[in-house]
């Protein structure tokens, strides 16, 4: 635990973190990039989730939908994580003390886990059923859960701004 704290304060005390904290433009700029990236992650993953639920893109197989959409999702996710890390190190201690921030990170991990479980276990025999409009229950569950988790991520993200004074 002590090592983690040292590790975090090393970044929090870096010149980069100092710049983000003190500069009037840098923080809003990174924050805006974070919002753009999060919007793309949530919006694009919703396309896949709605296909899993059988509510949209039903004339395309699941793998064609994912191979078409997920490259955008992953690119946006990379930007969201990078910008998020930069915002985090500017005030790491305060963020770690904020319940909504901690919840947000847990929810993102849960969303990742949901996806991993779906791909690893439920989607083993994917070619057999992926062309159907109504997918098997585990697939629909994964889609519904993904929507709930990502909406919760956005809720927590917005609430961080109301429960934590950064500047």
């Amino acid at each position, binding site marked *: 635990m002590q090592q983690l704290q040292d590790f975090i304060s090393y970044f929090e005390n870096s010149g980069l973190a100092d710049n983000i904290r003190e500069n009037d433009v840098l923080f809003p700029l990174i924050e805006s990039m974070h919002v753009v990236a999060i919007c793309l992650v949530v919006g*694009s993953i919703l396309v896949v989730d709605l296909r899993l639920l059988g509510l949209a893109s039903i004339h395309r197989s699941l793998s064609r939908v994912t191979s078409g*959409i997920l490259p955008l999702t992953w690119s946006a996710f990379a930007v969201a994580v990078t910008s998020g890390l930069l915002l985090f190190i500017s005030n790491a201690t305060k963020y770690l003390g904020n319940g909504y921030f901690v919840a947000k990170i847990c929810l993102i991990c849960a969303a990742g886990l949901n996806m991993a479980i779906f791909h690893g276990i439920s989607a083993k025999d994917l070619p057999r059923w992926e062309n159907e409009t109504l997918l098997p229950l585990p697939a629909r569950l994964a889609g519904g859960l993904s929507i709930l988790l990502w909406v919760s991520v956005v809720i927590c993200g917005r609430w961080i*701004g109301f429960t934590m004074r950064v500047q």
Partner: protein
Amino acid sequence: MNDSGLSEFCKWLAATPLSHTIQSAGWIIPTLQTIHILSVAVVFSSAILVDLRIWRLLERDVPLPEIARRFLPTIWPVLLILLLTGSLLIVGEPRRSLLNSTFYLKMALLAVAIMLTAGLQRSISSSSIFWDKDRWRRMAGQFAATVSILVWCSILFAGRWIAYTQAG
């Protein structure tokens, strides 16, 4: 309306019962903002997906008209949710946006984005090869898609910036 008139209007709006209700409970504004940002995610992603398809960066195996039919119609009803939540946010905190030039910039950019998106939707549905007829059309399509991406991104930036430029 001159500046002091606008200021009076904000004062009047902030004194309405609806504004009082929105201000009185601490959870209402964050909730409205969350619904607003989730709707932004849907509208923004729909527009960007079509723009990226025009650039042939994703879903190349699907014809452009099909992509446009899949994603663009969603934008219009969700814009109504944005209008509603946005209006309620203005009623709750009139000075935050109405006395803020960033807000007007955002609205101007939104007008451009709406016209561009409606134009793209109409042109694609009028002819399936509208943006594919020849080299010039393809370049024009890519130009329109680039402007669309830039304008939509600017709207999101301006939206975030309202919080940093609000009048005291």
